[in-house]
């Protein structure tokens, strides 16, 4: 008969390699960040709604959205935010940092990105912010290094 005291904990790791593909739609957006330092949205041909991040179809009606790319931003307004104070290895900035929902000018949806450059206590809804592009760009969303108050 095994007893509770027979149990112990083994420390270990779980690790596997991955290679993710952005697809043609995603690549179009990421390459534009890298090469043009421009942020695009995709416009719904019927409703005119502009979505960022881009996506191939409108999930609600399956309308193809890849035919009409419109430039949005680089400025926008904060529509919601938090200040991240716990630390994780995958975070893009040292804590504390602002993580905000930002509705770029010309877009109807918000993206989530990091905000820096001011006292985090001043972060507020409605605050105007502007994309600051990274000097070295690699076709990732972090080619926008962060958003800064205007």
């Amino acid at each position: 008969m095994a007893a509770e005291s027979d149990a112990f904990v083994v420390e270990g790791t779980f690790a596997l390699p991955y290679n993710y593909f952005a697809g043609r739609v995603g690549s179009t957006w990421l390459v534009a960040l890298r090469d043009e330092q421009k942020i695009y949205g995709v416009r719904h041909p019927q409703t005119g709604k502009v979505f960022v991040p881009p996506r191939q179809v409108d999930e609600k009606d399956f309308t193809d959205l890849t035919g009409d790319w419109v430039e949005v931003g680089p400025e926008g307004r904060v529509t919601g935010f938090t200040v991240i104070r716990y630390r994780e290895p995958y975070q893009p900035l040292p804590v504390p940092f602002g993580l905000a929902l930002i509705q770029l000018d010309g877009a109807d949806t918000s993206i989530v990105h990091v905000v820096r450059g001011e006292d985090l206590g001043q972060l507020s809804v409605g605050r105007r912010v502007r994309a600051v592009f990274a000097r070295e760009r690699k076709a990732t969303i972090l080619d926008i290094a962060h958003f800064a108050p205007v």
Partner: protein
Amino acid sequence: MPPKPLSEELIHREHMARFPQRWSTGPVMGKFLKALRDEKRIMANVCPRCGRSQVPPREVCAVCRVAATQFEEVGPAGTLRNFDVVYYASPDPVTGQSREVPYATAYVELDGAKGGATFWHELHETDMTKLRRGLRVRAVFEEDGKRTGAITDIKYFEIIEGEA
């Protein structure tokens, strides 16, 4: 404005997912691993209803659906019932690193195990052509002081020369 053409360049991103783990052995597996570490003994547990052995031990007998509570020592020698010779190098999810090939794994019916229960482990043999079912093999333990309470406290199984 002319429509923006979709990118010909296709972006990808490589990523190594890595999660620290704290595996709880539970009492049943804990007892098995501690016996390897402290006593160099292989402990099976036995179904109180049908009497079949399980190595490593499980909480229950899956066939009878009752808790398997009694433990019995089996091995360390046994009979090779099945084996694989692996030529394909694949990543070990415990480390993320690729394994060295070729290597052999074996299903060993340990002496004393009942109901045909076999135990899966590595088989150490450089000459893969020697391997056949029915060979007698034995567990080789890690030396004293180096055993950690892991399945690898048995380093591998080896062929017992001269025994049919």
